[in-house]
């Protein structure tokens, strides 16, 4: 029976599907580490963040505070952030309940354009500035415009070249993740842990917003548009050929006073991407549901935008593994923040995250329902970062300076 085949099909081609999902995650992390190493190696850049976002609303870290102050401040920041995300997710649930799907899709496309154009443009300008690349502004604007508009097409339209869409999703993840690494250090770590806990709560608790969203989607048999990375479905010779590739994209936002145009880069606010994806697949009916959590972006003049990415891991109706974009982003934030210390911590955190992702995939094949992909990887990543920084580094440095190893 098909019902018995489905668990086997996951494990049968597990290697191929695993690679299909590990490759984009690795590319995303690698690109973020590269950007961090290139753009942050300038010693003249100030260490205090001139960078305000909702995640630093409660407390902005400065070097002179004591550790306890920093920790308390970071904790408050994370609380504010998670609270904002929860509110935004519930608004999303409400919008989905009221069937404002067109509005969500439109906003998603619009946000994709803003992220690609604005954040992408900033990164490119930073790179041009760093390397003194002699490009003129007309060419630059044309290229940026092209890139952004095609990106909007890629995430907006359901039937588009798989490779191009995947590339754009990874690139959006890289952009948002890079901006998240600009948060102060303590805030970043406490925020990651807080988001991992929130993810568990939102996806698994019956009152969690993501779970509500999924259940609504299931009951209506609708797709939630959201930003989700879906690996190319593997077509096996013995099983059915899946014709439909399902892309779901969604962004939802709340705009108070939308004032996108006159934003300055100094006060650029990073969008926070949080999402969770719950995907349930049953053989035969192949119902799917997705949950997404809003991406929040707040400017100093209190404009609030949110977008949704999907986070969490699940199975597409074609059997392909789907991973929400928020997962990409937060894995990359962790690795990027590790890169700011040393490359040794990058290796440790990368391995930890990949191991966590593997564990999550195995749990996915066991439980056959959507799971939050953040908790295991983030917890392992954080633990390994601190172990590497506090214990491993001392050991390795001593060994190599005495020429015992390496």
């Amino acid at each position: 029976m098909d019902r018995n085949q489905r668990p086997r099909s996951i494990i049968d081609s597990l290697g191929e599907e695993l690679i299909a999902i590990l490759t984009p995650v690795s590319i995303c992390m690698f690109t973020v580490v590269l950007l961090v190493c290139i753009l942050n190696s300038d010693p003249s850049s100030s260490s205090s963040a001139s960078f305000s976002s909702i995640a630093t609303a409660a407390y902005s870290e400065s070097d002179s505070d004591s550790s306890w102050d920093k920790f308390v401040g970071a904790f408050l920041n994370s609380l504010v952030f998670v609270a904002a995300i929860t509110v935004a997710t519930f608004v999303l649930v409400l919008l989905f309940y009221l069937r404002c799907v067109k509005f969500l899709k439109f906003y998603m496309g619009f946000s994709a354009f803003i992220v690609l154009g604005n954040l992408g443009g900033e990164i490119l300008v930073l790179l041009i500035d760093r390397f003194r690349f002699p490009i003129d502004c007309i060419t630059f604007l044309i290229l940026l415009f092209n890139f952004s508009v095609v990106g909007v097409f890629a995430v907006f339209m359901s039937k588009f070249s798989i490779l191009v869409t995947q590339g754009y999703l990874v690139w959006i993840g890289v952009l948002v993740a890079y901006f998240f690494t600009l948060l102060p250090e303590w805030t970043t770590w406490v925020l990651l842990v807080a988001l991992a806990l929130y993810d568990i709560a939102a996806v698994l608790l019956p009152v969690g917003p993501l779970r509500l969203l999924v259940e609504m989607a299931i009951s209506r048999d609708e797709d939630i548009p959201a930003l989700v990375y879906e690996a190319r479905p593997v077509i096996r010779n013995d099983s059915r050929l899946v014709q439909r590739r399902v892309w779901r994209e969604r962004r939802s936002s709340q705009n108070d006073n939308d004032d996108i145009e006159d934003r300055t880069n100094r006060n650029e606010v990073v969008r926070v991407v949080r999402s969770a994806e719950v995907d349930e697949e049953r053989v035969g009916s192949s119902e799917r549901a997705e949950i997404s959590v809003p991406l929040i972006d707040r400017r100093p003049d209190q404009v609030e935008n949110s977008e949704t990415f999907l986070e969490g891991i699940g199975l597409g109706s074609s059997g392909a593994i789907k991973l929400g974009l928020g997962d990409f982003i937060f894995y990359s934030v962790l690795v990027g923040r590790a890169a700011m210390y040393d490359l040794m911590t990058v290796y440790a955190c990368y391995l930890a995250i990949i191991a966590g992702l593997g564990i999550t995939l195995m749990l996915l094949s066991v439980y056959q329902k959507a799971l939050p992909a953040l908790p295991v990887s983030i917890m392992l990543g954080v633990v390994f970062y601190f172990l590497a920084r506090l214990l491993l580094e001392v050991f390795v440095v001593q060994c190599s300076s005495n020429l015992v190893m390496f």
Partner: protein
Amino acid sequence: MEDSRSDDPNLNPIRNRNPNPTPNPLSTIISSAQVWPTIDGPLGLTEEASVDYARRFYKFGFALLPWLWFVNCFYFWPVLRHARAFPQIRNYVVRSAIGFSVFTALLSAWALTFSIGGEQLFGPVYDKLVMYNVADRLGLSGLA
């Protein structure tokens, strides 16, 4: 929901480039000897939808979007390869390819002139146009 099935082991899931000079009617996607118009093969569009897509991308590309033309050609690469298979789509894809080449030639001519010529060719205008100066003036490069 899974739409259709094929048990043909010859079906290459990623890139289906089976050369087939006689296109089948595409209302039922069953035969494995069929040429798919898109680069995604069986995961991509059907032929009718492809014509619509190709036309829309071609028209949108006129809004200073050569990259869209390139993506159009990339997506419908099998159409370019099998010359006789999809006459309608091919029309738009070839025009997109031409448009992309022309635009790229013009743009790269300008960009190369600018970067190689530099200050000697342009004089004071160079400093006004070059990106890192524009960024400095607008305060874009001082992010963190």
